[in-house]
């Protein structure tokens, strides 16, 4: 009978697993720790909603708008601009990131999963966990895997921080919540949410109506009350201790100097200005501060709200211009600031989206899906002008730091419609395997759940793309 070899091999590793590989509480880890990391922190800049690659990092022939323009003729709605790297061009509006392209690796051939129907949150679930729902177990978010396997980088900083996404967004709230969790790994490895970076400080400060003095005073009284308890005095248990410890950890986080990292007001105005005034911009500044304070994984998102931000069903051109203006300054400044502080080499930055966009193809060539966009064959209004359909064939991923090559492009897409990936396609398993590789985690690392292995990449089959890295 045919059986999957890697699963059989799991039984061998399971039996021979040393107790030292067992993390406390529940799920035994598998196979971790055999890779030399080139990064200690991962910053995921999440372009939620489907970032149009031909309007950003993979520009094609530009066609200006005019009434009567055929949709099929339009590949990009912006002219392209040079970058710091010869021969590599970006879309107009990303001048600042273009200027730091020499620190970056750009993937142009990311191919999203074929899920049979375009549903943003389902593709986002797939991107963030490596598995498409429904699944038989609750899948952990990539940030939770990293937090669980590597642990926090600093004891005063939650390992997994999630900035910029509100979870109450109307109809897709439930699907969003479904993957913003540590799944079966347990809430210890779940995300610490900061929906609004300006309020980040408040998530690590006492609630608005409680002054610092009062917070400190009640903590002191709490200790006294616990010490006075006849019940706690006479009996102690592992559970009591672990609750005590969790409360102390929380308190320490709230009162440690590291908590100052969350306060954007402490950043001098001169250094704050290049990040701009948008929530995303401020979040990038927060990411830099948190990295300096020892965060392990930070996700910063432009935010998914149906039909907002990168999710352009119409008016794609003007919206893309707005989005580029939103990200250009902050992303480039984040890279420069980390470099200036000597942190870029050990911090991996990944800018990605759940899929790309095209005007004509919904899905991918050869695997079209039900069309959800009203795009006329001939444009009659400016709102028809832009990349409106959901394109799973090709997307761009920009990486910097953490050991990736500098000024390198991986993957090529065709300059003619349907703009297929013609060289070096990469799917989520291998993209994740590459990210995990940089962090020192092999693609068949995982945990045991219900006595079976569950891997960080699907079936443990992801393979890191060594060409992306300086040290192969």
């Amino acid at each position, binding site marked *: 009978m045919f*059986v999957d070899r890697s699963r059989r091999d799991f039984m061998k590793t399971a039996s021979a697993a040393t107790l030292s590989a067992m993390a406390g509480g529940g799920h035994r880890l598998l196979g971790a720790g055999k890779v030399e990391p080139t990064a200690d922190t991962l910053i995921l800049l999440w372009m939620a909603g489907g970032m149009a690659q031909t309007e950003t990092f993979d520009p094609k022939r530009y066609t200006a708008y005019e009434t009567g323009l055929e949709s099929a003729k339009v590949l990009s709605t912006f002219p392209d601009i040079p970058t710091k790297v010869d021969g590599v061009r970006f879309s107009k509006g990303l001048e600042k990131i273009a200027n730091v392209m020499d620190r970056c690796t750009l993937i142009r051939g990311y191919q999203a999963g074929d899920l049979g129907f375009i549903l943003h949150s389902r593709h986002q679930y797939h991107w963030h966990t490596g598995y498409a729902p429904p699944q038989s177990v609750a899948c952990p978010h990539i940030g939770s895997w990293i937090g669980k396997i590597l642990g926090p980088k600093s004891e005063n900083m939650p390992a997994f921080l999630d900035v910029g996404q509100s979870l109450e967004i109307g109809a897709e709230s439930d699907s969003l919540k479904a993957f913003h969790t540590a799944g079966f790994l347990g809430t210890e490895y779940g995300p610490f949410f900061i929906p609004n970076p300006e309020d980040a400080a408040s998530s690590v400060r006492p609630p608005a109506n409680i002054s610092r003095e009062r917070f400190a005073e009640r903590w002191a009284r709490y200790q006294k009350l616990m010490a006075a308890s006849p019940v706690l005095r006479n009996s102690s248990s592992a559970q009591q201790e672990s609750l005590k410890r*969790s409360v102390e950890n*929380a308190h320490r986080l709230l009162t440690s100097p590291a908590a100052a990292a969350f306060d954007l007001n402490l950043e001098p105005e001169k250094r704050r200005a290049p990040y701009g005034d948008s929530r995303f911009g401020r979040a990038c500044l927060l990411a830099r501060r948190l990295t300096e304070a020892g965060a392990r994984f930070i996700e910063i998102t432009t935010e998914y709200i149906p039909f907002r931000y990168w999710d352009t069903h119409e008016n794609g051109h003007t919206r893309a211009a707005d989005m580029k203006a939103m990200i250009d300054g902050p992303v480039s400044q984040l890279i420069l600031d980390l470099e200036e502080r000597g942190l870029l080499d050990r911090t991996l930055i990944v800018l990605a989206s759940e899929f790309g966009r095209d005007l004509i193809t919904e899905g991918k060539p050869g695997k079209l899906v039900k069309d959800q966009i009203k795009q006329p064959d001939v444009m009659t209004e400016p709102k028809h002008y832009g990349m409106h359909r959901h394109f799973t064939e090709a997307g761009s991923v920009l990486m910097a730091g953490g050991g990736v090559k500098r000024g390198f492009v991986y993957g090529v897409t065709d300059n003619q419609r349907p703009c297929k990936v013609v060289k070096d396609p990469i799917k989520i398993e291998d993209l994740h395997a590459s990210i995990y590789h940089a962090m020192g985690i092999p693609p068949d690392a995982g945990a045991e759940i219900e006595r079976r292995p569950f891997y960080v990449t699907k079936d443990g089959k992801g393979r890191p793309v060594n060409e992306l890295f300086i040290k192969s």
Partner: protein
Amino acid sequence: MMRCAWMFVILPPLALGQSQVPDFARQVHPLLVAKCAACHNSRMKQGGLALNTRAEILQGGASGPAAKPGDSASSLLMARVTGERGPRMPLNSPPLTADEVGLLRRWIDGGARASDGPVASDWKPTLTLRAPAVPEGAGSPLDRLMDAYWKKQKVKAPAMASDAQFARRAYLDLWGLLPTPEELQRFESGKEPDKRARLVETLLANPAKYTDHWISFWNDHLRNDEGVVYHGDRQTITPWLKKALEENMPYDSFVRALLNPVEKTDPAGFLVGVNWRGDVSASQIPVLQAAQNSAQIFLGINLKCNSCHDSFINQWKLKDAYGLASFFSDAPLPLYRCDAATGETASIKFLYPELGEAPAIDSPLELKRAAAAELFTKAENGRTPRTLVNRYWRALFGRGLVEPVDDMDAEPWSVEILDWLAADFVAHGWDVKYLLRTLMNSRAYASASTAGGDATPFVFRGPSPKRLSAEQFSDAVSAITGEWRTQTPRGPGAAKYVREWQVKSSPLTRALGRPIRDQVLTERANNPTTLEALEVVNGSTMATSLWRGARRMMGVLPDAPKPLFDSGVVNAQKVVCDVALNGASKIWLVVEDVDSYDPTRTRAGWAGIAFAKANGAVMFKGDTHSSQALLMKVPSMMALDTMGAERLTASVGVDVESLASDINPRIRFFAFSEQPDRSRLIAAEGETPVARPPSLKDKVALVDRVFLHALGRKPSPKESAVAAGYLRDGKPEGLEDLLWSVLLSPEFQYVR
């Protein structure tokens, strides 16, 4: 640690040199498990050979003994693994390494000895129910079986729990609520010798409170949740589930309704599963989900592995998962292995064919489902009642007779107790409340809890401490302070005060373990985590609860203003507003989002808004055309002068441009004659799930009440002194802080 029929506790590896004799349990057995057990296990003995235990190795199979102690050269096992005698083993897999071969050789030559430590278990569960003999003695049958167990284990019976501990445990186990100080006082001062049994009776006899607690248990197990949308199929079973619990539906009927929903009111949603639009893995189509979930929840069998391929961790095969799924499928199922079509079609087959023939694969669906329902619940299937008994045992005692509870092939720590309980349960009509009564009237349940029970093998020494669930935590805070969650109706009218399970999860309850019910869940992680502590210590949900709660306890919580007008939920329709202003000089118009797809693009309008005097003279009138209506963003609030008017009229609704499907507005309009409390727009009326505590001003009374309700006891003199410090200036903030401290105490969060 997990146990199963042929894999035992993994022990730390010994550091052995090459020349030492390998240890069977630590080295030889794991190797055999890894390389041989897929075919040579107790259930499936290829060639008649199992390599599970030392005894089986020495006994061998059809070709004779596998090992001759002291003589590896003559041992068949060695001949097979070296290929000296074909076929080489393991079959169709890479050969053992030289080291591995050497390990086996050295073990055999060293005498093929057993370990000193724990040995692989020969345990095989029986399928049929058995009613073991109950020894003579005092007490109920369960008590006598328990005494026999403790005698055999040479363990002293635990001390009795105090009345306060018993009451706290029993109330939480049956109602999910702490006993109020009044209830506790009444129980403690009772003089009847059987007062504990009477308390259990009283608690069981309240269907509403019982249901409000146990519905969360079943929501987890049946992955039922309200209004969760993934743009695919999913159906709630709450109305049926609620009724089943309220009426104490016998468990066999309960299972049959879930597996074979016939009436319109039956829970079709369980078989519908959780679906997302688009392509799914073959192992997750609804009928495969149904097979996995019904096997796990009702039989304690894991079919997840073998929904893609034959399992490597138990005896189940791909055809078994499909065999069961076929009972729920209209048409015969094409067999997929690892998402690749095999070209075969699955046969319909129950997991235990000895229980009965499956109907023909082309039978009508109703017949197949009815057959499944029958096979799961027939008298000869003892697994179903044992699985249920074990789950309830775990719920009450903190650890099952069998662990993990989803692997009912594992050996119970008392076969007699599990079997007796299961047989007794069935003999009494599968009555769940009867089972609860039996367990809760036992001496074991009445005992003090004992921490520490992770010894191997496990020995039961009494109930384990349990942690409050997310729902119990939230309801406890509500009951102590009198400040409850509210549930707003769809139409106009008052909101109701409800328990935590009926409202959407909050960041606090999610952090405390309230699950996302995408999968069935039989065990919530209950270890304290830092994120959870952050929510309790610093989260806004907790802070708001305590702010309001403290003030309510002290009788100083301001009432939220009531609206003059409440449109109820509006999407495409228009609602008429026609209200008297009652002398108000100002009016606040509020529009709130209920559940719009895109509230930011929704425009709400008060068309034809008019302020009129009593005699009908109109002082201000907006145009009746919606484009000229008083438009407001969602959500927003606007204050207007009434200019001495006596009446306000308008036609409220959504702007016509907002009626697009990608906006899908659902909003609600209000008008207030005083500044509204945006968090309490819809007033709640009616009773609270637990009667509100009397509002107290006396500091000692407040402290005592908090301790009595939260912890089930009065504060010690030292504690009273510290607590008095919190309340020294008599302000609500002091009480907030005291509540906060008590809620963070392990004594509060754990149930001893």
